[in-house]
């Protein structure tokens, strides 16, 4: 299923004019505070009636101002996790979670116990929302949306209030949701780690306009686009296949350019994985370095370099045909003579690639086996 959004709306002091297509999978809305992310999500959910809009899921037209079509929110079947949790204060956590259940019709639903387990809500089921902590509220809100068997998930900064450990538990679940079900997800987040891990498509917004949009791998490794997102988070995504699980807790992954050793990933040999490597975690050397604690050294060719105003240089590498980004200082680039066409070695520490950055794809993007 795919989502197509075309919106124009004026608010006092703010004008939104955005259009993007979201293929199946997770589409991340990225942008600064006040860029218009929540406004877009509200329009998709039908909570905002835009001046002009056309929103289509697969072939269901949710709203088309030209044609005078308007589907009311409750028939849009979107699961919306609000930026503010908006739990029903008069219902228990359990009743909040099951609120949407009676409207799911015959669509397949996530099993209640499973969602509760993943989100760590078991101990809270009989509590009242007023007595929950900020993060607990947000987890209940996520569960409530998931259990309404939506045909589109809208997540507005769902994990912002959560600690990393909790995030690390919930992210794989969202991943599985993305891969197992065909539910498209519109995901608002400030965290490039989350976005890189989940998103198939990234839409970068600024002041109500789309700055750039496209497949996550492209946008996140496009130095120009990366500027809009925030330099620190630039990185590239390599696709690989799990080759073996080693005894010392490392997983060996074959990527186009060679082998990577990463901290254990819970995936069978043969499973396809996406590995995000932040540009700043990549070191370059002209000769293959020896005696370093870094285990992963990939041969690569410089495709382009881009110098900004700062001290850094973004280097686009081709590693076995795949794109790899490295961010080094200008001084190093000059010293090592990193120019277009130069051959070099990319050094990536194993532990630099934290677990949060590795996404599992049980099913390869393409026909299932």
């Amino acid at each position: 299923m795919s989502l197509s959004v075309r919106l124009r709306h004026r608010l006092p002091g703010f004008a939104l004019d955005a259009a993007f297509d979201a293929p199946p999978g997770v589409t991340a809305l990225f942008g600064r505070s006040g860029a218009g992310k929540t406004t877009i999500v509200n329009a998709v959910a039908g909570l905002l009636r835009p001046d002009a809009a056309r929103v289509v899921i697969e072939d269901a037209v949710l709203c088309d101002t030209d044609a005078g079509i308007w589907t009311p929110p409750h028939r849009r079947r979107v699961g919306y996790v609000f930026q503010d949790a908006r739990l029903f204060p008069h219902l228990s956590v359990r009743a909040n979670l099951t609120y949407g259940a009676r409207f799911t019709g015959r669509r397949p639903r996530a099993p209640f116990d499973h969602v509760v387990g993943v989100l760590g809500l078991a101990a809270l089921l009989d509590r009242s929302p007023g007595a929950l902590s900020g993060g607990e509220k947000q987890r209940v809100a996520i569960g409530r949306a998931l259990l309404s068997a939506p045909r589109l998930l809208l997540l507005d900064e769902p994990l912002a209030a959560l600690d990393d450990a909790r995030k690390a538990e919930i992210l794989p679940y969202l991943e599985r949701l993305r891969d197992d079900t065909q539910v498209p997800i519109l995901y608002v987040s400030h965290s490039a780690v989350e976005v890189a891990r989940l998103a198939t498509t990234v839409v970068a917004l600024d002041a109500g306009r789309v700055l750039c949009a496209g497949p996550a791998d492209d946008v996140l490794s496009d130095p120009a686009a990366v500027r809009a997102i925030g330099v620190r988070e630039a990185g590239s995504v390599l696709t690989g296949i799990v080759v073996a699980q080693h005894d010392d807790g490392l997983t060996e992954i074959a990527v186009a350019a060679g082998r990577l050793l990463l901290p254990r990933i819970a995936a069978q040999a043969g499973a396809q994985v996406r590995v995000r490597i932040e540009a700043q975690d990549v070191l370059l050397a002209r000769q293959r370095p020896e005696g370093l604690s870094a285990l992963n050294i990939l041969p690569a060719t410089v495709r382009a370099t881009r110098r900004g105003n700062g001290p850094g240089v973004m280097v686009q590498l081709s590693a076995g045909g795949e794109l790899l980004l490295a961010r080094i200082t200008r001084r190093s680039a000059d010293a090592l003579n990193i120019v277009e066409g130069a051959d070099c070695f990319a050094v990536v520490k194993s532990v630099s690639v934290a677990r949060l950055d590795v996404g599992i794809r049980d099913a390869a993007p393409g026909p299932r086996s």
Partner: protein
Amino acid sequence: MDGFGPEIWQAIALSLKVAFWAVAASLPAGILTGYALARWRFPGKGVLNGLVHLPLILPPVVTGYLLLLAFGPQGPLGRALTALFGGGIAFRWTGAALAAAIMAFPLMVRAIRLAVEAIDPRLEEAAGTLGAPPLWVFATVTLPLAAPGILAGAVLAFAKAMGEFGATITFVSSIPGETRTVPSAIYTFLQVPGAEPAVLWLVALSLAVALSALWISEAVAQRLSRRVRGL
């Protein structure tokens, strides 16, 4: 002065019956009206609002007279009722209940309206995104959240209905066992020199009844509003 036994108890029972049914029967309309005034925009909203307040502004006698015009045996509504159910409501306790309900209606509606206005519409939106159609949202989100206000409105209305007299006696007069409520009994005694002790008696009785209703409702309200706060 305690010799007037049965008639008094009859009046009290009748008052309770009238007030209860006045509130119970008008509650749905009151909730609908309060909700409409709080949330909807429609032409004639101002007129509806004025109409609701009318019984408060008009002297009760006038309201009673207008009721008589409409529901009396010759009135258009009265005739319709007779045709439909084979009996009107004039001179019946049902008529007293109608008069009490109409007099209490503005109080009930105002309380409900305030309660609905205080509900965060974003909660209703959230329910909508979960697939709940508007009526279901109303029943499962709006109504429970407005419950303390609805209760307050019902209590106000009940108190008013217990005390109502002007419109009632004008509309359905004062027939023992049928429409002679406590207030009209009190009025009767007030007209007679020297009946003050009887009046005191009756006042104390009706107070006791109304106040116990009030206190019970307070206890319920407290529990309700704690639930609504989500504690």
